[in-house]
């Protein structure tokens, strides 16, 4: 248990620490030399149009590396509704941990087509813009624009000490989280994927008889309308909550490989058999847009500092991901196969509702 469960689980997350420390060094440098405030200055005009502030660009930029420091960076936004909206939308942008998932789907089903990864980033940006426009018009986010008065610090050469300290503070809070929330979650998943009710009572069993497989089988019904209702994909989406790159590893284990490369090329043929192009793309979209990994969820909880807003953020992200994947899969099926059913009609209704929410007057 210690080796398989804890070391591989927490290790996978801690493996990100060196990269994150590098990222934090450069971000601390950009902040300390006074450039970040200039980015906010330039981007404000664009971001204000969809209910964010110029300062929202910084969390989103950091979010391409990792959502956790991205969400933490939203702290600099004074206006309450701008900040909440930034926290909700930051993790829509694909972070570094989502790249293996994109690589897996692009490689296995789309023959490595370049547009898959590109479209993932554009889908993330579109999700931020659409969410901003929709949320801006809802009641809790209404209210007048707050003043955007901000000092632009003079450019200067930062001291090494302040850069290192800022890097270490952020890095350490991430390591602490890996030791608590993520540790507990990995132990649970390891236990649930290795134990279950086998032929001779409760005990260690193969993964396809485990508790996790039962849970996966149970929730997979939810994902049938999205085109990927097999239990392996559902379990992969679940374990993706621990860390998004887990999706690749989980699919590898569930398809019978002990270890897979980062882009999972051992299981490409199995995936290509299980998924159609549409269901694979819907799977990708759902995993990119739904609630982020536990580390980022923890960061959302801390920054929101209110259970109500925390659950709203998670619920909104999952509902948004579900609706987008559902519409893409159902409408895609209509155009490629020409089949029209109740679900297709429902997808049309949802799309119409979505466009209405986007276009309605404030």
């Amino acid at each position, binding site marked *: 248990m210690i080796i398989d469960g804890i070391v591989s689980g927490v290790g996978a997350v801690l493996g990100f620490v060196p990269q994150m420390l590098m990222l934090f060094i450069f971000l601390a440098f950009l902040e300390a030399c006074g450039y970040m405030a200039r980015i906010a*200055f*330039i981007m404000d005009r664009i971001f204000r149009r969809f209910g964010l502030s110029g300062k929202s660009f910084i969390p989103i930029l950091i979010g391409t590396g990792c959502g956790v420091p991205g969400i933490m960076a939203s702290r600099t936004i004074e206006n309450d509704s701008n900040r909440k909206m930034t926290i909700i939308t930051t993790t829509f942008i694909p972070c570094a941990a989502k790249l293996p998932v994109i690589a897996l789907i692009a490689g296995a089903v789309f023959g490595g087509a370049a547009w898959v990864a590109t479209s993932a980033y554009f889908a993330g940006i579109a999700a931020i813009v659409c969410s901003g426009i929709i949320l801006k018009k809802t009641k809790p986010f209404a209210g007048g624009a707050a003043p955007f*008065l901000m*000092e632009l610090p003079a450019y200067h050469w930062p001291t090494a000490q302040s850069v290192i300290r800022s890097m270490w503070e952020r890095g350490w809070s991430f390591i602490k989280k890996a030791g608590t929330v993520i540790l507990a979650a990995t132990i649970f998943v390891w236990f649930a994927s290795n134990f279950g009710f086998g032929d001779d009572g409760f005990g260690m069993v193969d993964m396809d008889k485990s508790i996790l497989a039962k849970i996966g089988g149970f929730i997979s019904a939810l994902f049938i309308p999205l085109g990927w209702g097999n239990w392996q994909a559902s379990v992969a989406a679940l374990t993706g909550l621990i860390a998004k790159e887990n999706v690749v590893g989980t699919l590898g284990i569930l398809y019978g490989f002990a270890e897979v490369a980062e882009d999972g090329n051992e299981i490409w043929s199995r995936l290509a058999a299980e998924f159609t192009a549409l269901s694979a793309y819907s799977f990708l979209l759902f995993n990119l847009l739904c609630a982020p990994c536990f580390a980022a969820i923890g960061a959302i909880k801390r920054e929101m500092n209110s259970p109500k807003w925390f659950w709203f953020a998670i619920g909104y992200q999952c509902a948004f991901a579900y609706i987008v994947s559902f519409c893409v899969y159902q409408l895609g099926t209509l155009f490629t196969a020409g089949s029209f059913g109740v679900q297709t009609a429902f997808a049309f209704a949802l799309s119409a509702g979505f466009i209405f929410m986007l276009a309605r007057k404030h």
Partner: protein
Amino acid sequence: MQVLKETRPGSTVRVVKIGGAGPIKRRIMEMGITKGVKIHVQKVAPFGDPMEITVRGYELTLRKSDAQLIEVE
């Protein structure tokens, strides 16, 4: 009466009156823009909205909607 919003980049003006109310007015005054102080308009952002000014020896950025409230001469 001229407002700060219409002031051309590169010119220096003096604050006559600060309009607005409540938190917005307070925030403007907190940042050092008070009656009689000199403001040098540095530039306007590439997309045309927030503007950059020098006030009391430091650089400050504010949106044109806020600059509208500041009367200058």
